[in-house]
Structures are given as C-alpha cells and as structure tokens.
C-alpha cells in the first residue's frame, strides 16, 4: 500500500523518474569523495600486490583477518536483496514494492564488492583463476573437497541469479524511462528494456519469469551463506568447527542485509523526497524483521557458548573464553551489544517509527555485524590448538585502506545506481495504486 489515494500513475512516473534527473552539487561532492577513497584503496592494493601480503597486518597464526571479514560482511549484506525481493514476493508481502529495487541493487553491488576480497586476500592474486572450475595445467581440476571451491560456486551462482533477477525486474521500468529519455540514455534504457511494449503477452511471460526467478533465488538465500559459513565450519579450528554455523550465518547475513537496506533507504528517501513511496510503514516493517533476525543471532551467540561449555573441550572453551575476555574482548562486546541487544529497542514502537533511531540503530547493526565476522575469524585463529603459536593480529594501513576502498567501491555503484536507475520499482508501485478510471490523472 502506498500512501494517499491522491497518487496516480502519471504522478508516480514523474516522481520516481525524477531521481534520474541531472544531479546537484552535493551528489558530485559525494561522488568525488568516494572516488578519492576508492583510488586510495586501489593504491593500497597495488602496493600489496607488488610488495607481498606482508604489508598487511596478517601474520602467523592469524592468516585470515579483515579481508575475509569484509568478504563475509559483504556477502551478508547481499542477502537483503533476495530476501526482500524473492521471499517476500513469494509470500505476497505488499510493503516490499517500495524497497525491493534498492535491496536488489544492494545485493548486486555487495556481491561485486565481496567478490573482490577472495582475490585481495590471495598470496598470488594473479593466479585467482585457478580457483575456477575448469581443467587446468593439462588435466587438473580444482579440489572440490575444499570449501573455498564451494564458495566460488555459491557466490557465482548467487551473483548470476541476483543480476538476472535485478535486470528482469527492471525491464518494465526501463521501458518507462526509455519513453521519456533522450540521447544516449534512450539507447541505454532501450537496451535494458529489451523491446518492452507492455503487451498482455509480454506481461504474462514477464510475471511467470519473475515468479520463476523468485523461486530460484529463494533457496540461494539459505545456501550461499551456509556455504560461506562452511569455510569456517568445515575446518577444525576451535571456534569455527560448529554445526550451528550455517543457520547462524544466514540469520546474521539477513540481519546485516536488512540493516544496510535501512541505512541506505533513509537518506535516499530524504534526498529524493520519496516519503510518499517509502513510508514509515515500510521502514517499521523492516525494523520488525530486524528484531526477528537479531533474536536469532543473539540465540546463536548463546548457543555457541553453551556448546563450548557443555562439550568440555579445552580447546573450544579456551577459544570462547578468550573471545569474551581476551585481547579482542572489545570487539566481542561490540558484537553482542550492537547485534543482539540494541535491536531489541525496536520492540518499542516509538523507536522503530522514529527515523533517526532507525537510522542510528541500523548503522550500529552494520558495525556490529562487521565485528561479528572479525571476532569469529580473528579470535579463533589467534588461539588455536598450539599455545606456543598463539599470536595477535593488528591491522596496518594497507588492510584498513583496502577495507575503506571496498566501502567506496560499493557506494560508488550505489551512487551511480541512484542517478541512472529508478530506485523504486515504478511498475510495482503502480500495481499498488488504484487503477486510473479514465484517461490521465484522477482527482
């Protein structure tokens, strides 16, 4: 439901396409700042490729740290899109219409960011293609027993399906944009519209294809992050080797994905004055979902500790004791408080309907979820089986710059998206509107 019966099709077209009008000063300043950070991150990466991974803070025994943290974080972010667009679509949740385009864009861009990190973290990134499933070096396939290869499959599959889903959903909107655009934009939108005329036949095909893709994407929400979690769970590292990891990671991913969507929607709504389309009602529903995922995540934290204690396994218990009380305890408490305690504030209606609270808490959840991955990866590796080989990880400028650069990369795409594509699905918004009675606008 979109507010106000006063809205009509033409108004919706006009409002929603307005986001694609030439940008203002603020936009260009943001873009410039973003590109500067991105270039700095690229410089840091080039330094790392040229000199070796030694310029990062990675060390023995913490061989994975914030690169893999970033990878898992961005894959997690990518979950919101499919959840909102596919699962909520299948469940016919009506409030999804206004937010799903942004969510899907977040998915695609987050995957594009996440996909960089397995390459960034390689010792010899110029051989990254050896991880791809093809016959190499005269007959050698990659090792299909390695969870990292499963990762390649999972992430690639998810990326392809998400992109197809994203572009399919765009087709009718692109036709609207094409009809109103001139010059090269017309060519671009024309191409993306794929000759859409809005005929019944096209609509019939379109809706069934969309439904089919939604059905295809839904299991991926579960599978992708399950597979990512198996990077850890399949190893024998205390603190990683746990059967709870798959559901725990999926819940965490959705948690962070929802938070990221809220974080992006609120400024978007403000800047483009889309209050009529992204209403408090939409945001409140997202916040309610966040309560659910936050509870699941919190439950997982507790379960992990219970199992570590119940197993009476020295190695496991030490790993968890260290998490809460050791060198990285601050990160652990950020994770606990930001991810499972603060979201509980959304039980209070006044807070979940207040935009500043929503925005603030969503950012805290983003931070908390980043630290969740950091805590799982770094603290577990820092305290493994052999006490003599315990060690600490401290990030250095290269890791931090590449991380910052990855955020810049993500936001660069998002900024371009906001200017070049309709951030809200025009077609689906119109579906929610009362049909026009005669021609043109209704009273």
């Amino acid at each position: 439901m979109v507010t106000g019966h006063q809205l009509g099709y033409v108004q919706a077209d006009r409002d929603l396409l307005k986001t694609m009008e030439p940008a203002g000063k603020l936009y260009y300043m943001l873009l410039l700042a973003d590109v500067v950070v991105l270039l700095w991150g690229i410089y840091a990466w080039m330094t790392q490729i040229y000199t070796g991974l030694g310029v990062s803070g990675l060390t023995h025994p913490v061989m994975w740290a914030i690169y893999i943290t970033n990878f898992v974080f961005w894959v997690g972010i990518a979950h919101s899109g499919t959840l909102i667009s596919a699962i909520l679509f299948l469940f016919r949740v009506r409030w999804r219409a206004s937010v799903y385009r942004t969510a899907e864009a977040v998915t695609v861009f987050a995957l594009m960011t996440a996909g960089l990190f397995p390459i960034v973290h390689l010792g010899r990134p110029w051989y990254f293609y050896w991880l791809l499933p093809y016959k190499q070096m005269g007959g050698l396939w990659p090792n299909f027993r390695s969870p990292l290869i499963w990762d390649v499959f999972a992430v690639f599959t998810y990326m392809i399906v998400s992109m197809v889903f994203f572009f399919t959903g765009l087709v009718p909107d692109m036709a609207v944009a094409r009809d109103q655009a001139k010059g090269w934009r017309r060519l671009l939108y024309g191409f993306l519209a794929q000759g859409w005329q809005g005929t019944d036949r096209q609509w019939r095909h379109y809706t069934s294809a969309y439904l089919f893709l939604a059905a295809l994407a839904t299991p991926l929400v579960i599978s992708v992050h399950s597979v990512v979690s198996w990077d850890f769970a399949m190893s024998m590292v205390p603190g990683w080797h746990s059967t709870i990891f798959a559901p725990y990671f999926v819940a965490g991913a959705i948690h962070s994905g929802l938070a990221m969507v809220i974080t992006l929607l609120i400024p978007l709504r403000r800047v483009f004055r889309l209050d009529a389309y992204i209403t408090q009602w939409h945001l409140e529903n997202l916040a309610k979902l966040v309560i659910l995922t936050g509870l699941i995540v919190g439950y997982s934290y507790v379960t992990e500790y219970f199992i570590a204690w119940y197993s009476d396994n020295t190695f496991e218990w030490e790993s968890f004791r260290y998490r809460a009380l050791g060198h990285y305890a601050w990160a652990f408490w950020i994770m606990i408080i930001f991810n499972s305690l603060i979201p509980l504030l959304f039980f209070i209606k006044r807070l979940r309907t207040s935009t500043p609270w929503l925005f603030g808490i969503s950012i805290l959840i983003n931070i908390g979820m980043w630290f969740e991955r950091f805590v799982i990866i770094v603290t577990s590796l820092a305290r493994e089986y052999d006490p003599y080989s315990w060690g600490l990880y401290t990030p250095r400028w290269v890791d931090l710059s590449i991380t910052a650069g990855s955020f810049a990369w993500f936001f660069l795409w998002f900024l371009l998206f906001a200017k070049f594509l309709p951030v809200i699905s025009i077609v689906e918004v119109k579906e929610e509107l009362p049909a026009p009675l005669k021609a043109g606008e209704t009273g």
Partner: protein
Amino acid sequence: MEVNRRDFLKVLSIGGAAALTGCSAQAPEKLIPYLIPVEEIIPGKATWYATVCRECPAGCGMLVRTREGRAVKVEGNPDHPVNRGRLCARGQASLQGLYNPDRIRQPLLKDASGTLKPVSWDEAEAWLISRLAELLQQGKGVGITWMTPHLTGSPDRLVNQWLKILGSTRRLRYEPFAYEPIRTANRLTFGREVIPTYDLESSTVILAFGADFLETWISPVMYAREFAAMRAYKDGRMGRFIFIGPRLSLTAANADRWISVRPGTEGVLALGLVGVIVAEGLVKGLSQDEVGRIRALVDCYDFKRVSEATGVEPEEVKRLARTFAEGDPGLALGGGTAVSGPHATTTLVAINLLNYVAGNVGRTVRFGPVSTLSQLSTYREMLDLIQAMEKGQVSALFFSEVNPVFTMPKAAGFERALGKVPLVVSCSSFMDETVAKAHLVFPTHTPLESWGDVEPWEGMHGLMQPAMQPLFETKALGDLLLSLAKRLGGPPAQAFKEESFYEYLRARWRELHQRLQSDVDFETFWVEALRRGGVFEAIPAQPVRLNVQALSQVLEEPELAGQADAFVLLPYPSLVHFDGRGADRPWLQELPDPMTQLTWDNWLEVHPEDAKRHGIEEGDLLTVKSPDGEIELPAHLYAGVRPGVVAIPIGQGHTAFGRHAEGRGANPLALLPKEPEPRSGGLPWLSPQVTLARTGKKHLLASVSGSDRQFDRGIAQVIPLAELQAYAGKEPHDEHKVLQMYPPHEHPNHRWGMAIDLNACIGCGACVTACYAENNLAVVGKEEVARGREMSWIRIERYVEGPPERPETRFVPMLCQHCDNAPCEPVCPVYATVHNPEGLNIQVYNRCVGTRYCSNNCPYKVRRFNWFTYKWPEPLNLQLNPDVTVREMGVMEKCTFCVQRITEGKERAKGEGRPVRDGDIVPACAQACPTRAIVFGDLKDPESEVSRLRQNPRRYRVFEHLNTQPAITYLKRIRPSEEA
C-alpha cells in the same frame, strides 16, 4: 687463466676420486671454468670435504658439502671423536661467516685522516715490510706482539716461529672464556694446570656448579652427546643431573633439579657436600689418613652453616651429598661465568675436593687427554699486555680473529692502550671493533677456505682443508706470514723453506706420520687423514694425587660483597653468539634463545618479583649502572634468575661487525671491573653491584613464543620414571581406533616417519639452524619476527610447568607432522598440498595461490607463508642449496622431511642396486641433533629404528584425539623420582 687439457683432467681425477671416497685429497689450486663440459664433473652431484669447525675453540670435526664449487652445507664429521657427526647451531652457521656480506674484501690501510682505505695486497705488504724493517733496525723487534685466538698445531707453531725470527716472544692466545679458575684449581689441588677430560657418559650422577656444558662450556657438542647417553633410559635406570647456580640456563633446564644458590656460594655448598660425605663415611677409595686431613679442612663447613650461606635448605644439602656419593661414578663440574666471581678458584678447588672424596678423580675426571684450552693466555696476561702497550713497550701488535675491544671489560682499557701502539696490524675476516682500530688490515680466509690443523685435545689432530676457492681477494694467515717473511729477506726469509702454508702444514704432518704411522707412505697417510678429517691418538690418563697442604690456604669463605639495594650481575655467554663472534650471522640472530625465546636482541633478565618491587615491566628500557660503567638494556622478566640477580647474555651490543650485528642492545662487558681474580688471574664475570633505573622508554623484544604454558594440552608430555619402570615390557595402551570416512592412504613402497625423543632433546636449536641451511629458509629480521612471521620449518617449543620456584622446562621440536589425515590437504582449493605415495605431505609451490587456508586448519601451526619475496644479501645467496626451490612471495611452505635427501637416498640405493636401508636417509635436523633425539626412517620397514621407537612405551602423538594420524611419534620425557 690458462688451463690445458692435461692439467684439467689431472685436477678432475682428484675430484673424481674425492667423490668416490667422500672427501677431496686436495683442493683445486685454481678455479676451473666450465668451458668444456667434461664427463667427470657431474652437475648436481655434491662433493664433501672434511675439515674442522672454528666457530668456537671446541674443535668439532666438520664435513662440508659443496655443489658446483660452492660450500652449501656443513655437517658434523662422524669420524671425529669430539662431535661424532653432530654439530651445533653455531657450527651450522659457519657458512654465513664464509658468505658474510660484511667480510673484508681487500686490504685496508689507514690514511692520514684516520680512515681505512682499500689498497692492493702488494702495496699493503710492502708498506708493512718497510715499517717492520724500520722497527727491526731500531732494535724494537722484541716489542712485536702477536695475539691470536685459541690456535693449535701448525698455525700456532708458525706464528710463534715467525715471531721468534723477528726477535720476540710476546705471544698471546686470547679467548674471553679461558677457564683460568679451573686450570689454577687443578694446579693447586692436583699439581697440573690443565683442563682435564670429563667423562659425562660413564657418570650416573652429575652435579654441575654453573657449568653450562650443553651451551658454551669447553666442548658443548661433545658434552651434549655424552649427557644424552648418560640420561638415556636403559635397564630401568637413567642418570641423574642436578644443576647448581643462580640462573636457570639451558643446561640447568635439562637437570632433574635446579638448585638456585646465592651467587658466589657454590664453593661453600661443595665444601658442605664434602663435609657430609666425609661425616657420613661415604668417601670412596681414600686412606683413613687422607680422610682425616680432609675432614679437618672442611670441618667448619657443617651443613647448617652451609645452608645459611647458600640459601639451600639444610636437609637438601644432606640429600644432595648422599645422592652424589651414590654416583658410581659421579661427576661434579664447575665453571662458567656463574661461578667465576672473585672467589672462583676457591669454588673450583672445593669442587675438585668433592670429586676427590667421591672417588671420581681418575674415573670421570681424568688428566689425559687434557684440553689444549689449558694453553690459553689468562686475563691477567692480557692486562699485562695492556700495561706494556700503555708504557710503549709494544712496538707492533699483530692480531687475528680476536676482538678484545669488545670482549674485554671496558675498564681494562684495551681500546685506549691500542692507541699507544705505533703499528697495529689485523689479519681478520670481519671488520669488528678491534679491527676498526688497526692501521693495516689484511683480510684473511675464513676457516672454510683455509688449510690448517686443530688439536682441541691432546693427540686429537683435526685436519682442515679448504672446501672451496676463496670468495674474495683474501689470504690465509699462514700464507701471509710466509709471504711477509720472504719479503723481509735475510734471516727471516731463510728461516722458512716452504713456499706456502700448505707445504708448511704437510711438513708438520710428516712428523706426525713418522711418529704415528711410519709403516705406510706419507701420501696414503695424508689422504687418509684428509678423508677422515684428521688423526686421532689415544692419550692415556695420568694419575694425580691430592695436595692437601696447598688446599688449606685456598679454602676460605667465598662471599660477594655488595650493597644491599644492588643487584648481582651475571653476564653469560649466549648460546648463539658465544662471546659475540656469532652476532653477524643472520641465522644465529634469528634463532631464538632457548630460555627466553627472544631473537635479534640483547636484554636484561630480572626476576618478576624484583621487577615488581622496582616497577619494571617487560620491555622497559633500563639504565644498568655499575661502578665501572653504564649501559641501556630492555628488561625481560624471567623467573629463571634468582631474586637479587640480573643476567645479561654476552655477544650483542656490537658497534662494528657488520649489518646484522651492529646496534643491537648493549655489551655487558662495559659494566665489569678491571681487576682479575687474584688466584687464577681470570676475569671475575660475576659483578656484585649493579643498579637499575627506568629510562621511561619502551623497547620491542621479538619473542617467538605465544605462550609459556601448555595448559594441559599434552604437547610436551612426561612420564614419571617409576611409571616407566612399572611397564617393564608390557604395552602401555593401544592407540584408540577411529572410524574413517575415507579409505586409508596406500603407501606401496615407503611410509616415511619420525620419532623424537623428548628425553634426549636438550632444546639447543641446532636442528633449527640446520634446517635453515638445508632448505633455504629466509631470515626475516627482528620486526618481522616480532610480528610472528619467522620462517622456521622446525621450531623448539619451550613450555614451563610447575610452580615458579621449581620450574620444569620442556622442549618440543615441532615440525610438519606429515599427517595421514592431513587437515591442510582437503581445504586447499587448488591441490597445492597433497599426500604422496610415500606418506609425505607435500607442498607444491608452483601450484599454491596463497589462500593460507591450510595454515588455518593446521593444528600444529607448522606452515609458514612467504609474506614477501625474501632477499639474501650477496654473497649469502651463494649458500643456497641448489636442490631446494627458493620460494617466492605469496606461497605457503613447510617441512618436507628433506624430500631432496629422500630422493637422493633412493637414487643412491637404486644406483647400487639395493633397497633403501635404514639410516640411508637422514634429514638435516636429525643429522645435526647433538643428542640424536630425532630419528627418521621408513615405517613400512618393521626393522627400522623409527618403527621400533614407535612401539616404545613412552610413545605418544601430539593431538592424537584430532585423528590427524601424524607420522611423527614423540617419546615422553622421563621425570626422575621426586627427591634430591
């Protein structure tokens, strides 16, 4: 260079013969260019040369492996009686002396401005000759002085002869650790001023008073071997070992008990033990009369007084005496810096007396063969030299490979006195603190490029031969002396018939040949000596009698006078740097000190309680002040020093000596007093008064240890002796059976495995350095070590158990376990690490993309990642083993069980048409181990030693419960019974 075909083949035939016999008869006189590839030279085939290690005065025999004319690895010579095929870390690192990037490459002459400028050999020698001729003309030949380190045999004789011809007898053999108190005490008690043979192997109880015989004391590799044999469990028994001294050294850590006594009171304790032995009638083999006289001597040292003086419980004194007297035979060892206080001689006399009453003299303490270290100059003689230099009596000072500016107390004033000598000539390979003060610097060959002979013990004639062509424009010391004599003309020129030192050496060996083996012709004798690494005579022990009269004057109450709030300073020779001569070897800098686990640095060890009292924390930079000097050092909190004592390792704090040595820590010699110990003339190392003050600065100490404790994780396990005795042939328990998801690996021919005996491992780190040398491991430097990025494939984990006042140190060599169910293998996405048909877990560098997942999944954490492409400063790169890949950045690496040696062993067996025999293949770590703690072999062969050790009741595997099925079996360390 002209080499005709005939010469070429002649040289080659010798090389070919050498390849057959294992060692070369003669080093090629000229470098052979591979202009024409000739069949006899097989690229890729190693040639071995036997020589003697000169890294410390112990004189271990060494085999040098050369490839394509370059020395690439050194190993102990199995035929040499000192070390029997074993070698310590310092010996391994002799290669980094040869290839050191900071070697002096041409002669240097000090110009008017006081800087050393390169000159040609001809110029340098001509300049010196003119100066010498001048001196001789002025009649100042008598003031010419020669200072060498411990030299024996031909080089020693040549130096003396040369000096004599110029009309001087001023000759010093200077070693910072000259064992003066031992020699003097033996003169006083037994009438012989020598260092005797100590027979550790035959002893059943060893009592060491400060003697760090597993580290640096006299002949550590030999003693380590004997010690391990003595400690081995056989027939339900093992030898006992108790260490007495103020610091828990590596040697002390290997003892059943470390008894911490008040510094300087070791002698009182020894006399107390004598007292108890005499009083309780435990004396062995002495007449009643003699016992009576000894009783009179030690009467005043009743165990209660001794207990008060030393801080040892009275009952403990008694128990200790009984334990020692039970020894059949026992052995009391005394020495090292810890007992070299102002009463060192008294302490050593007391220890002699203890050995005497327990009946050990003549059994485990034998006067023959005696150590040639007995001929070293004393510290007092060095002080006399300084005085002579100050007075202008020294007209010229020649020295070679000694560094008194660094190794003598600053207060002794050697550096200042050196300024008064008109002509200072250095013949050394490295620009150290003393060489920098010379007027003329002749760069000499390193030992691996030189001919020579070394006689560490009477009758033990080790022969040195060059393993390769000299790397730079250097000369052998002997050749230089002969050349100078020739140039001087007149009588000096006539005195020497020989053209080269090689001939001079052979001339002396002709004498040996006449004396020892005149039944064969000389060439046979010579080639055999070269092949075996020397000629070894058996020297019988001579009986000695106790001189009781002399003793009564010596035995007085030893005491260290000190202020109440001051610390007693104990400088101790570093296991890796010795007196400082190892500090320019990157392998040794990177090898962690076994007790502190620190690398690349120098530090002050302070007891945690003292630290707490003075508000000192780990890494605080302190000002250490004594009446004689002041230095700045970072604090390391170490429960292994007695409260009230602070310890500093000797060997760092170089201001010259190359890029790897310079600017690391400070030299504790700056704190020591000048005055010698009155009786022996030795340097009193134990300095009574130092005070500590914080500077407020912090210093990064690069430790390799993540934890001192193992938290009951069963990595380093022990078994009580009683429990082991109870097994007596019965099997302890069966390894638990586990369900396997995958079928087991097939090993059709071999399954390589290893057994590591923790009861033998002393934690010395020789295996670590051997691995660096064999496998081209990169040295990463202090900052990277501090980050945890050292590259060692094998490391000695050190864990401490028990209460702080009675620490139990455990060492575990940790290396790739070559698991049958290797956790690293399934996680690698590109098959860069796989199981091979011989049970090796192999790492394919070319395939590795560097996900590092394998390292995360390795419970043993033995995989090392190439964070950078590491560089070897030239010419250190020439040492790289051509059989082992040099890894580039971004790939993982780890122990290969020396796969190149496995391949070589199999090839050799195949060439000889036989199966591989047990012992054919020995990885570098196992080869080096002074105590034979590491045994490698084929687990498929039920007769192999490793297969038998896998059945030992002491066996266990680390993290057995993880079902990784490691190929390495550890044997538990045996914990002796509780008392004493």
